[in-house]
C-alpha cells in the first residue's frame, strides 16, 4: 500500500510518533478499555518505544501511566464494503498496520487477532525472538489443530502454497503474524492492482516467497474462534480459494519455476499441538457430493478432463463406507479449477459453487480415512496429500501453459 493509501488522520498520527521499536497492530474491532487493560499487563519493555495500534477513533492514551513504554494509537481503516467477510476485513487491517509500521520506521511489526489472545508478554517475546534473534522476516503461527478442523486450509490452501511457492507453512493465511521492517514494506505494497479496502486477501507467506524473504513458524497454544459460522460454503470457497487462485494468476512466472518445497524453521513448544476432534458424520457430506454429481455434470465437464469425470462417476456409485477420493484426483480437481478460474471458463462465483460438492466429497473421504487414526496419523495423512500436490504440479504447469480442452 503506498503512503497515500493510509487514511489521512492515521498518516498524520504516524508521522508524529517518532522512531518506534515495535508496532503491535490489532487487526479488527476491539474494545479500547479491554485493550488498555491488557497492554498494562505487558512487562519488560522499559526503554523501548512500542505503539499498539487498533482500529477506532477514541484516544485512550491518557489512561496509560506516563512512564509506560507503550502508546495506544487508534487508526482508521479505508472505507470497506460492509459485506466483506471477516478475513477480508482483517486483511485490509493487516495491510494498514504494515503501512503504519513503514511510516513509523518500526523495526518489528506484529499484527494480531482482535480477540487479543496473542497479546501477552510470552507470545510477544516469542515473535520478537524469532525476528530479532533468528533473523526471520516473517513469523507465522502454527495453531493447535484438531483432526477435523481447518480442513479447507489443510486440503487446499496450505498444500497449494507449498506446491506452488515451495513454502511448507501450516497456515498461509493467519490472523496473527510478525514481520521485519522490510517484510512490512513488502506487505504494505503487496496488492498494487487492488483498491484500498476492496477486500483483497493478504497472503504474507506468498509475498515472502516472491521476495525471497525468510519465513519461520511459531507454535502457539492459542485457539481463535472460528470465523465461518453461518456462511455458505460456496461463499467461503469463493473468497478464500478464489483469492488463492487470483494470486496464482499474478505470480505465475514465479511459481512455475519453483520445483521443490523446503521445510520451514519452526520454533516453540509442541506440547499442546495435537487434539483429537469430534467425529464427523460423513453421510450428509456424501449426499452433497452425490447431489452435485447429478446436477453439476455439465458444469464439471467444462472444467474437468474425462479421466477425472470418470473417477467421480465411479465414486458416486460406491457405498458410503468405502467412499474415498484418491489424492491425485482431488489435487487435479483443484488444479483444474484453478485453471478454469484463470481462463474465466464460466462466472467465477458459479465456478467456486461447483467446487463445493467436490470439496465436501473430499472431506467425507478424509473423515472416513482418518476416523480411526490418531491426530498424528491424521497429520501424516495430510502430509501425504501435500506431497500429492507437489507430485502433480507438472500437471498444473502443463495445463496452465497449454490449456487445451482436448486432454486425457
Amino acid at each position, binding site marked *: 500500500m503506498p503512503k497515500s493509501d493510509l487514511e489521512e488522520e492515521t498518516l498524520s498520527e504516524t508521522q508524529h510518533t517518532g522512531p518506534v521499536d515495535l508496532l503491535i497492530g490489532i487487526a479488527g474491532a476491539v474494545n479500547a478499555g479491554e485493550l488498555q487493560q491488557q497492554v498494562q499487563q505487558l512487562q519488560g519493555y522499559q526503554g523501548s518505544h512500542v505503539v499498539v495500534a487498533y482500529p477506532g477513533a477514541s484516544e485512550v492514551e491518557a489512561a496509560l501511566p506516563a512512564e509506560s513504554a507503550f502508546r495506544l494509537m487508534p487508526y482508521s481503516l479505508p472505507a470497506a464494503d460492509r459485506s466483506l467477510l471477516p478475513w477480508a476485513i482483517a486483511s485490509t487491517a493487516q495491510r494498514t498496520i504494515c503501512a503504519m509500521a513503514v511510516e513509523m520506521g518500526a523495526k518489528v511489526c506484529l499484527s494480531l487477532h482482535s480477540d487479543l489472545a496473542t497479546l501477552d508478554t510470552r507470545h510477544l517475546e516469542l515473535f520478537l525472538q524469532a525476528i530479532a534473534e533468528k*533473523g526471520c522476516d516473517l513469523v507465522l503461527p502454527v495453531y493447535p489443530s484438531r483432526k477435523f478442523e481447518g480442513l479447507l486450509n489443510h486440503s487446499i490452501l496450505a498444500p497449494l502454497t507449498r506446491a506452488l511457492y515451495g513454502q511448507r507453512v501450516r497456515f498461509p493465511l493467519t490472523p496473527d503474524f510478525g514481520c*521485519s*521492517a*522490510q517484510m512490512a514494506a513488502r506487505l504494505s505494497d503487496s496488492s*498494487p492492482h487492488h483498491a484500498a479496502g476492496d477486500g483483497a486477501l493478504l497472503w504474507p507467506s506468498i509475498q515472502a516467497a516472491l521476495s525471497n524473504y525468510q519465513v519461520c513458524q511459531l507454535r502457539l497454544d492459542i485457539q481463535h474462534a472460528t470465523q465461518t459460522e453461518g456462511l455458505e460454503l460456496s461463499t467461503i470457497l469463493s473468497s478464500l480459494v478464489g483469492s488463492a487462485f487470483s494470486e496464482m494468476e499474478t505470480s*505465475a*512466472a514465479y511459481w*512455475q519455476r519453483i*520445483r*521443490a*518445497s*523446503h*521445510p520451514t524453521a519452526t520454533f516453540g513448544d509442541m506440547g499442546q499441538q495435537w487434539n483429537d476432534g469430534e467425529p464427523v458424520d460423513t453421510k450428509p457430506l456424501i449426499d452433497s457430493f452425490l447431489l452435485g454429481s447429478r446436477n453439476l455434470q455439465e458444469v464439471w465437464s467444462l472444467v474437468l478432463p474425462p479421466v477425472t469425470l470418470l473417477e467421480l462417476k465411479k465414486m458416486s456409485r460406491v457405498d458410503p463406507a468405502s467412499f474415498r477420493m484418491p489424492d491425485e484426483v482431488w489435487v487435479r480437481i483443484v488444479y483444474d479449477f484453478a485453471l478454469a478460474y484463470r481462463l474465466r471458463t464460466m462466472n467465477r462465483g458459479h465456478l467456486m459453487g461447483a467446487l463445493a460438492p467436490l470439496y465436501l466429497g473430499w472431506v467425507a473421504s478424509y473423515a472416513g480415512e482418518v476416523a480411526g487414526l490418531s491426530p498424528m496419523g491424521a497429520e501424516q495423512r495430510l502430509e501425504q496429500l501435500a506431497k500429492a500436490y507437489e507430485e502433480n504440479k*507438472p500437471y498444473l*504447469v*502443463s495445463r496452465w*501453459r*497449454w*490449456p*487445451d*480442452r*482436448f486432454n486425457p
Partner: protein
Amino acid sequence: MSTYLNALRSAKSAGSATDPHWYKDAIIYELHVRAFADSNNDGIGDFPGLIQKLDYLQDLGVTCLWLLPFFPSPLRDDGYDIADYMTVHPNYGTLDDFKAFLAAAHQRGLQVMIELVINHSSDQHPWFQRARHALPGTPERDFYVWSDNDQKYKDARIIFTDTEKSNWTWDPVAQAYFWHRFFSHQPDLNYDNPLVMEEVLKVLRFWLDMGVDALRLDAIPYIVEREGTNCENLPETHVVIKKIRAAMDEGYKNRVILAEANQWPTDVRPYFGDGDECHMAFHFPLMPRIYMALRQEDRLPITEIMAQTPEIPESCQWGLFLRNHDELTLEMVTDDERDYMYLAYSADPRMRINIGIRRRLAALVDNNRRRIELLNSILFSFPGTPILYYGDEIGMGDNIYLGDRNGVRTPMQWTADRNAGFSRANPAQLYSPVIMDPVWGYQAINVEAQQSDASSLLNWMRNMIALRKLFHVFGRGTLKFLPSANRKVLAYVRQYGNEQVLCAANLSRFAQPVQLELAEFEGTVPVEMLGYVEFPPVTKQPYPLTLGPYGFLWLELQPAADTPNESAETNDIVMLEAGQRGDWEILLGGANADKLKNDILPEFVRKQRWFGGKSRHIRSASVLDFAPFHDGNSALIIAKLEYEAGEDETYFLPLTTLYGDAASLLKEASPNAVVTPIRDAKGEGILCDALTQESVCLELLTVITGKKKIAGAQGIIEGFPSSTLPSLTENKGMPHNARRSSAEQSNTSILYEDRLIMKCFRKQEFGPNPDTEIARFLTEHTDFHHIAPFGGSIEYQREDGTSATLAMLQGLVANEGDGWAWTLEELERYFEASALATLPSENEGKSASELIKEHAGIYLDAAATLGRRTAEMHLALASSQIEDFRPEILEPDELVSLGHDLADHALRTMSLLKTNLSRLPDDAVELGGLVISRRREISARFQNVNTVRSRLQRTRVHGDYHLGQVLRVRADFVILDFEGEPARSLSERRKKQLPIKDIAGMLRSFHYAAFSALARHVARRPEDHQKMEPWANLWTRAVSAEFLRAYRETAAGSAVIPRDDHDFRLILDAYVLDKALYELGYELNNRPEWVRIPLTGILSLLQ
C-alpha cells in the same frame, strides 16, 4: 512562475508502466483505428469502437497497442500525411474519445504507442501553407526545405520508386522546389530551423502529458539533408533525436521512443546512441530473411543477418515483426535475394509494390498453419520485442486488387455477420471492402469463430503469448546460435540470469534430425515449455532431437532437481553477512573472505566484459587490499586472480553496496554488475560494481581534483591532477553528471558530461602505466596537441614503493567517431561508387592515389593528415632527454637480435597455421596452404633486416597503433590509447622501439579496414565479390602511399626514420609482415572466420 510550472506539471498524466524497461517484455499489437471497429456505423473504425474491443486485446495477451496515425489528414498516405498533429481525425472520433480510449487501455494494463511523424507533414498542414506564401529566407518559409532548382542532394535515392521521379517538386505559389523523401504531397520539415524543433517538442509533450506511453518516430533516417551525402543517417539527425530523447527524459518516466529506420543493423545501431537516443528500433533486414530461410529450408539467411547485428546498449531493444501495414520490404536484401523473394512469394506482379511484397503473413505462407506457427515461434523467441499486425492472429488474408498497400489494411474480421462484424453500415459505405473470397473471406476467418474453436490459430497465439510472458529471457536474454550439420534446423540458446532456453526450429516441410552441442549445459534437464515435459538430461555428448515438419521446440534448461538441503546451502554461500553498514573489514573478511575468494568474485569477474582472461579457468580471486571511500559506502579493491594454469593477475574492482530500490533497479538493469547479495544489521542489499553508480563516479573524480589520499591496508590510493586539469574545467567548473560509457572493452570508461573521460584500468600491473606516462609526457612536455589532453591519474602505491595506475583522466574530445568506424563508412561509399565503375588500368603510369581519387573522395587527404600527425607524434616522443623518453641508438647486435625475434615469431605462427589448416573456413584453406609454402621466403625477409646500415633510433612509441586508436575530429585526427598491446607485459610495452613499428601497424589497419568493408559490401551484393577485391587492393595501396608520403615529408631530416630509402623499406616491410603474422595468430586463436584477411595480406606483401 514556479506555481505556474507546478500547475503544468500536475496536469500531466502518468504513463501506465511502472517498470522503466517495460518495452523489453512487451508484446506490441499494431492496428489502425480506421480498420478495427466502427461504433457509429459510418463505415470507418473509430475510438469508441476500439474501446469496445479492448477486452479482446487484453484476452489475447498483448501488452502494448501501436496505433497508426489517427490525426487530421487528407489521407493520401494512410494518415502519414498529417495536417494537424494535436488532435484526432473527425472520422475516428474526438480528442476526448482518444483520452477515454487511453484510460480504458491503461486500466487493462495495456500501454499505448502512437506515431510521431516528424520527417514530413502533409502539404495541407498550416505550416506548409504558411511557408509557401512566406518570403524566402524567413523562418516561416524555412519550416520546409526549398531550392531554386532540383539539382541539390542528387545522391539521395528515391524511396517510392513506383510513384515519384524526383525528391523535388515545384511549388507554383512559392516559385521554388520543395524537398520530399516520400510522396510529393509530403514536404520534409527543415530541422536546420530551430523553430521546427520547438514545434515538434510541443507535439511530443502534448501527447506525453496526456499519458501516451510510447512514440514511434517515423522515417527517422531522412530528417536532415546535406549536400554530398545520401541524406540518410547523418550525424545531424542524431543531434535531433538526442534532443527529443532529452525532452522526454526530462519530464516523463517510463516512456519509450521506437525508431523506424529501414537500414542495415549496423546503420541502425547509432539510433540507440549511448542509450541516449531511441529505446527501440525495428530490425528490418531480419524479417525478409525469416521468409527466405523458410522457403529455402536453410537457416543461413537468419544466422547471417544476426551475425551482422551489433550489440546494443543494455537499455535498448530491437523491435521484431513478421508483417506490418507496409509492404514486406526488400530494401535490405541483395539483388539476387530480392529476385528470389519476388519469385518465391509474389507470383502475381500485383502482389508487388515499390521494393517489396504487399501481402499478409498467412497469404505469404499459403495459409499453412504449421508455417504460421513456426514463424511466430521464431518471432516470439528471438531477441527483441515482437510486434503483431492486427488480423494476423487469426490468419487474415489480403486483397491484392486494392491499390497501394490497402490490400493489407482491410477491416478486421470479427464475425461472420455483415461487414465481418466491423460495421453495420451499408457495405458500399465501408472505407475499404472486407475480404470476401472463399478461402480468406470473413465467413471463414473471423474472431468469433476462432474464439469458439479450441484449436484455432487465435487460441494458439493466445497460449504462445501467455507462455512468452512467463519468461523474461525472451525479451531480455542473450542469443547464441548452436551449430549443427543439418542447416534445415535453426537452433539457439537464450540466456538471462538463471533462465536458459534452448529453441530449435525445423525450417523444412519434412521431419529433420539434429545433433546439438550442449556440453556447456551438461547436467541440465531440458523441459519442453509448452507441455512441461521433461526430456533426457544433457550430457557431454551431442544432444539428439527430431523435429516434425515445420516443428519447433522450446526447452527450458533446468538445473537437475535439487534437494531442500542443497538449496539452503547454496543460499548460504552466496549471501554475505555484514556487520554495520560501511564495515568493509567484516564484509570482505572472516568467513566472507573464503566465499568471495572461491566462488563469488571468480563468478563475478568471469561475467565482466572487461575481463581479458575468459579462456582461462579462475581458481580463486582474493582481495589483496581495499580502501573504503565515498563515506564508507564503497571501496576500491585490488584483487588477485589465480588461474588453474599460468601467471596470476591483479585486477582493480571498485565495489559498492546498495539497498532497497537502488538495489532492485540495478539487479533489473544490469544483473551482471551484481557481485552478490548481502545482509547487514539494517537489512538485505547487494554488493555490486561501484562504477554503475553516478555518485561513486563523481567521488572518484574528486580523488584526482582534490589530490585525495585514501588509505588501504597495504598501500595508499592517491589522486594526481595534471598541470592542465584546471584548463579542462575552468569554463564550466567541475562536472555534476557522470555516466559509464557503453563502449567498454578491457577497461571501464566514465564520461563526465561532455568534458572529461576517466579510464579505469581493470587489469593492473605494478610499474609506470605507459598510457598515463605518455599522455602526461605529451601534454606537459611537448607541443604535440593531437591527443586527448591529460587530466590526471589515480595511483595505488604499495608500502614497498611500487605503484600501479588505477585510473586516468582526460579531456573528452568531440569527434565524429573512431578512425576505424569512420574509415568503414568511407569505404562503404567507396565500394558503392566503384561498383558501377570500371577498374582503372595501372599501366597508365598513374599512381594508385591518382587512379582512385575520384572514388576515394576525402579519404586520401585524411590518410595524408594521419601520416603527418603520426610523424609529429613520433618527433614529439623523441624530443626529450628525460630518462624514460630519451632516444637510443639501435646497436648492430640489437638489429641482429631483432631479425631473429621476428623470424622466430614467424616460425611459431607458421606452425600454428599448419596445425589449424584443416579447420580453416573453406575459402581460406587454399590461401593458408599458399602462405605455408612460402615460409622460407618469409623467414628470409626477416633475416634481411641485418643488412640495414643506416643509423636507427629507438624511442618510445604508441605500441598498438591502428585506426581504432585515433578519433576523427573536424577533418583531422586525435591519437588515443598509449597503453600498448594489452597482451604484452608492462616492461615490453614500455620498451623503446623503432617508430616504424607504429607505421606498420597503421598500414595493416588500412588493409584490414578495406577487406572488412569489402566483406560487408559483399554480404549485401555477393555478385560483386570477384569484381571488388581489386578495388580493395587499390584503395589499400593508394591510402598507404598517401599516409607514408605525408609521414616521410614531415619526419624528413629527423632521426626517427632511416635516411636511406632502401633501409626504410626493408625495415617497414619486415614490420608490416610481422604485424600481419601477429594478426594471423590472433585470428587463428580467436576468430577463424576472419583469417582470410591476414592471409591475403601476407600473400600480397610477399608479391
